[in-house]
């Protein structure tokens, strides 16, 4: 396994009586796509919030590029190269598509001219070229997902956290988006993706972590994880593996 860009050691996050993330440890190898799957409410988005600094862990530590970042504020983590997209897209709806991307581009480009150039280039690369002057709130769901990705890319991330970028897209849009994500990985960006579309998880990632009720219950290649009886039970309920489960259980 390649050297890990991000490693999480026994991280927990408690909301009052609820332990949303329970002693989770995982590592994301540099230059690969790691997938994070699990049923609704498993704590996947909370885990992303902990990695990106929007929430502080109750315990545990997070290392990025070999350095501890557990106590760094979110904007400082973005500066160091951790970008995230939001599950519920958060466009700057009053601004044009171009100005949305410019905000991200400004992180490493102080002048407006340079930020505009980068924003245009990224917008075209992600297929938003014709929509750069449109207000962001006139985009379709697929367009907004692309915008979310474009803004994150404009910050020149080393680690990209994709929170369900395929959710809400139709099969054609998913087919267009998958090579886009693969292309990012090809450029050397390490990716961790939360995804429910298994077809995409199977084709994109080499390593999958399964989170259920705040704990990692399985990890491995997509095929191995999909056949894991524990995972099937987590998704479909107790006894499900026996009933309908993977061939090797029967």
């Amino acid at each position, binding site marked *: 396994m390649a050297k890990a860009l991000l490693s999480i050691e026994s991280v927990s996050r408690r909301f009052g009586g609820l332990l949303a993330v329970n002693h989770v440890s995982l590592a994301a190898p540099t230059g690969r796509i790691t997938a994070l799957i699990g049923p609704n409410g498993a704590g996947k988005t909370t885990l992303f919030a902990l990695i990106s600094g929007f929430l502080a862990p109750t315990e545990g530590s997070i290392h990025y590029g070999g350095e501890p970042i557990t106590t760094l504020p979110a904007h400082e983590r973005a500066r160091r190269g951790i970008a995230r997209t939001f599950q519920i897209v958060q466009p700057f709806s009053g601004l044009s598509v171009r100005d949305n991307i410019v905000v*991200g581009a400004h992180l490493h480009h102080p002048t*407006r001219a340079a930020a505009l150039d980068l924003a245009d280039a990224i917008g075209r690369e992600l297929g938003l070229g014709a929509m750069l002057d449109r207000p962001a709130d006139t985009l379709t769901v697929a367009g907004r997902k692309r915008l979310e990705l474009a803004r994150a890319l404009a910050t020149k991330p080393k680690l990209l956290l994709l929170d369900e970028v395929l959710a809400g897209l139709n099969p054609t849009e998913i087919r267009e988006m998958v090579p886009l994500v693969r292309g990012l990985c090809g450029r050397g960006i390490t990716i961790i993706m939360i995804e429910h579309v298994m077809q995409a998880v199977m084709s994109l990632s080499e390593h999958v972590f399964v989170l259920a009720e705040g704990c990692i219950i399985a990890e491995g290649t997509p095929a191995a994880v999909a056949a894991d009886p524990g995972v099937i039970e987590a998704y479909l309920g107790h006894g499900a593996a026996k009933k309908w489960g993977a061939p090797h259980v029967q």
Partner: protein
Amino acid sequence: MKPLACMLTFIIALAAVPLVVQSNTALNFLITALLIALVGQGWNILGGYGGQYSFGHAAFFGTGAYVTAILQVRYSVNAWPGFLAGVTAGASMGAIIGALTFRAGIRGSYFALVTLAFAEVLRILASVAPITGAGVGTLIKLDLRASALQFQSRAVFYWVILALVAVSLLIAYALERTRFGAWLIAVRENEDAATALGVNAFKVKLGAMTISAAVTAAAGCFYAQYFLFIDSGIAYGTRMSVEALLTPIIGGSGTVFGPLLGALVVKSLSEVAIWVAGDAPGLNLIVYGCVLILVIAFAPRGLVGLLGGLKTHLARSRLLKDAANG
């Protein structure tokens, strides 16, 4: 025409007004309108571009006015450095209130209430503290010399306030074209999304509040020099806070010319109302209320937004006509 050239032409045209209009009443009207435009532009930097709706900009106006006045009256400081000290004090007041409220994560209507509370506390302090002249207020000695920042001719006062407004327009113009401005607007639109893109929202809001307070404080300093009298009600009263937010909202908040346009319209309407109905107390507030209702109902993006909408509407109908002909 380029926006910057457009702005310069506009300022030069305004600067030429006293050469044509000699009436003191007219100049007085323009000076107070520009004064309110400056107060409003200060608010616009934080509220219009940054989305932080302050109800207490009187805190900065009053601090600028009092510091300028007190330094001259009690410490015999020259008016020019006194003016600068007033602006600095106002900016510091903005930084302090900003640091306290933003650090505590106060947003939206809570921010509005907290800023209002700060201004009210300052008003009450100023109405009892001996150094401000308490209930009597502070009177600056009449000394009509340029070295004392007082002028025989209203035209010169007019040019001074116009220059200050020009600087404030340039600040707003710069906000639309710099990284700081882009980040500030991003924070207004969605603070979490901005943070995820590496924007230090606390620092950006604090910076905006400091600049905003400095601009509004400059208006306070000018007020003290022009009217030579302030008391706690004038300096820290809610009336100034209300005018600070009304003018940009009516003119178009988050736009360069919104506060100036709003101030000219609001002041004109007040004058007309006084001319029609006589100087009934509270009449200007009734006018403000009516204008605000009309603007929110029919032009939620302000008068500048209304004009912009008209422009795109015309462009669209021209396109349609071309399509029909061609």
